[in-house]
């Protein structure tokens, strides 16, 4: 099997959404892991905590993504121990960017689409990446096979300086559209908020109350 075929087999259909509100960054993702037409998992974890004030969503090849997360967590911890301070969200984004670009230039890119969200002294941030290592700071972004549906909702509903509750409603609405129309997206939602108090994962009850499904 060619590498590309393997990627098609293992590639995870997904929808993830990252969104910036007035005082917080929001990351949400579905929980379905697919291998072609097979649902490989209905409880896949696609939003991962990086440190107390940042998280990352993953879409694409799970092994690549998990490896990147492991390396990032280690690098951030070393940074915090060495310097007795937390890296800014943009610094974390830079680390991810360099890792992706290095691998791309080695002719075997990490097969991932990532979104980093975090909170630092300058407020909330959302950063998005592509496989080749490009980086951009966004108000909102979506990745994965269901992202076209999510993009539509976000394009229509996103507003600047939303409250946490308003932002969560928009993000969950976007994800719900993707779950309905993309076969590779589904099996519930995991949602994370990062604000001045740090990383917080929403309970199932909270998600349902805000219009999401589990």
């Amino acid at each position, binding site marked *: 099997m060619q590498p590309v075929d393997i990627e098609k087999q293992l590639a995870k259909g997904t929808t993830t959404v990252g969104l910036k509100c007035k005082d917080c960054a929001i990351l949400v993702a579905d929980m379905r892991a697919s291998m072609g037409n097979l649902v490989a998992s209905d409880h896949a974890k696609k939003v991962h905590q990086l440190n107390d004030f940042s998280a990352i969503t993953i879409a694409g090849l799970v092994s690549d993504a998990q490896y990147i997360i492991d390396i990032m967590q280690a690098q951030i911890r070393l940074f915090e121990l060495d310097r007795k301070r937390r890296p*800014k969200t943009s*610094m974390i984004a830079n680390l991810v960017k*360099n890792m992706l670009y290095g691998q791309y230039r080695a002719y075997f890119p990490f097969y991932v689409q990532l979104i980093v969200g975090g909170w630092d002294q300058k407020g909330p941030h959302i950063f998005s990446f592509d496989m080749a290592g490009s980086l951009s700071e966004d108000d909102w972004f979506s990745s994965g096979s269901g992202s076209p549906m999510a993009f539509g909702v976000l394009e229509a509903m996103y507003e600047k300086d939303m409250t946490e509750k308003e932002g969560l409603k928009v993000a969950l609405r976007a994800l719900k559209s993707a779950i309905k129309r993309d076969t590779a997206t589904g099996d519930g939602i995991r949602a994370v908020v990062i604000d001045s108090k740090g990383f917080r994962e929403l309970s199932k009850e909270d998600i349902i109350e805000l219009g999401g499904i589990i």
Partner: protein
Amino acid sequence: MFSQPSQFGYDKATVIFSPDGRIIQVEYAREAVKMGSTAVGIKTEQYVVLAGQKRTFELIESADKVFKIDDHIASTFSGYSADGRALLQRARIEAQIERITYGEKIDPEVLSEKIGDYLQSFTQYGGVRPFGIAVLFGSVYERETSLYFIDPGGAIFSCLATAIGSNEAAAKETLKKGYKRNLTKKAAIKLALDALKAAIEEDETVLIAEMAVIETKDGLVQVLSQKDIDEILKT
């Protein structure tokens, strides 16, 4: 018994401790620092001043004494100038590595630690000699002034004011007397010059200084020649 370190060869390599726990090669390196032209550093609430004496020789144009490492960090050293240039090049590269890795300016404390680590490695492995220099890094980072002194063994000290190089004790004495946390820019420059003058007193030569000043206002390194310094002192 240990008064003659060379008797047993304890001074022949940096990998060998003398029985009283010293690394004699590092101490010799400190002696090399004392032969270098004097340099001083002062950190106040709003300013960082690095100043060094530019030695002049007949028919030779004098070499630079203070150096810009990045927009916000300046450096000066005393000792073997070739060792100094090599180390400062390393510091400049570390500053750019930080920019590529994190997309941010390097924290001067982090830079000092990296340079300290590098110097330390020359005290623990065979086949090398320590750098024959002491270095000062001055910086404004996130609106805070900082001044670091690194010795040839790689030890790092954060200082309010310090001097390195020939006759450093006399320069330090002047700094001790004149230092205040809230010195104005002009007063800090003047104190740095006085300290250098105290160090070269015995030589009876005219002081030609070079200086780097960093203000918290913009956090950018300004390198000043003796002419520039005279201009400022005139106003």
